[in-house]
């Protein structure tokens, strides 16, 4: 669930064809509709929710020697020097909620992180509203900065986090998510860590003529998670 393809993504540019199909610059296909108020576009965005049982052994993946992993939790240093300014708001918000995570440092530089929550909450990254039982957890914010993406850091972060949960013994099931179009994240979750899809969340909303979502137009979903109109990047 690397977030590089979703978080911070620019508003897609829409190109319409005569057939009414609309293709966005980021590869999504949407269908168009007309209303008496003018042209409207319905955007369909699919997110897959994955689950993994923790009684299955967690594979371990080697990383480059320079990679160091450090824990983030409400009881650890709240201002780790390596966390860049761009990530401070998220850091503090996640810690305030009581979440924990791991971050990677390479030669003193922040390289990426991964978070886990034990509480039901709205995830700003995926736009999913998470409902967790006491023996369930939800991983999110899996991110590795582009310049560090060949060091095996993403896999090391996930392996470390899953191992920690496994050793603590309180969590039996972990959820994660990936955009349907993000094949790299899909393959990492499935092939490297044995996550299996458990729910498809279809997020549909009506865009105005400038490609912006019309407030309240999202279609809600049902299941372990549901979507929210408060996703910040789609």
């Amino acid at each position, binding site marked *: 669930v690397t977030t590089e393809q979703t978080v911070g993504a620019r508003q897609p540019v829409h190109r319409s064809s005569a057939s009414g199909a609309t293709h966005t610059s980021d590869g999504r296909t949407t269908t168009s509709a007309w209303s008496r108020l003018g042209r409207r576009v319905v955007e369909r965005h699919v997110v897959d929710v994955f689950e993994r049982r923790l009684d299955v052994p967690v*594979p371990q993946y*080697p990383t480059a020697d320079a990679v160091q992993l450090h824990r983030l939790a409400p009881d650890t240093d709240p201002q780790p020097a390596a966390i860049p300014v761009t990530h401070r708001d998220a850091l503090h918000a996640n810690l305030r909620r009581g979440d924990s995570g791991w971050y990677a440092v390479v030669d003193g530089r922040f390289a990426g992180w991964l978070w886990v929550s034990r509480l039901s909450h709205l995830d700003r990254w995926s736009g999913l509203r998470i409902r967790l039982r006491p023996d369930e957890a939800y991983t999110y914010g899996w991110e590795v900065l582009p310049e560090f993406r060949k060091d*095996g850091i993403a*896999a090391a972060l996930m392996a470390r986090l899953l191992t920690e949960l496994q050793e603590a013994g309180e969590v039996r099931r972990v959820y994660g998510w990936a955009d349907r179009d993000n094949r790299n994240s899909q*393959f*990492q979750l499935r*092939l*490297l860590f*044995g996550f299996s*899809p458990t729910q498809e969340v279809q997020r549909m909303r009506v865009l105005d003529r400038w490609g912006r979502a019309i407030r309240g137009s999202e279609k809600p979903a049902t299941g372990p998670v549901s979507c929210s109109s408060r996703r910040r990047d789609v």
Partner: protein
Amino acid sequence: VTTSFANLTVRAVLAEIVGSPVVDRIADEDRIFERRIVDSLHLVELIERLETSFGTEIDGADLTPENFESIAAMSTFFEARVAA
């Protein structure tokens, strides 16, 4: 399609990604992800090249570690897929 053909095809695809010298040193049962022979950045390329080479599309349900963890596993999987 024989087992050896599937094995050779998987090895050829891997060689396109990581190079023949690397693939020549891999045993059929070696776990290619855990040994970082194929890193996570090459997962998409690996799957897409395998789909093209075997002329089959991989269903999401088949994307499991058991089917792709080694050359032997991939060979067995694609041999069955093509034969089906």
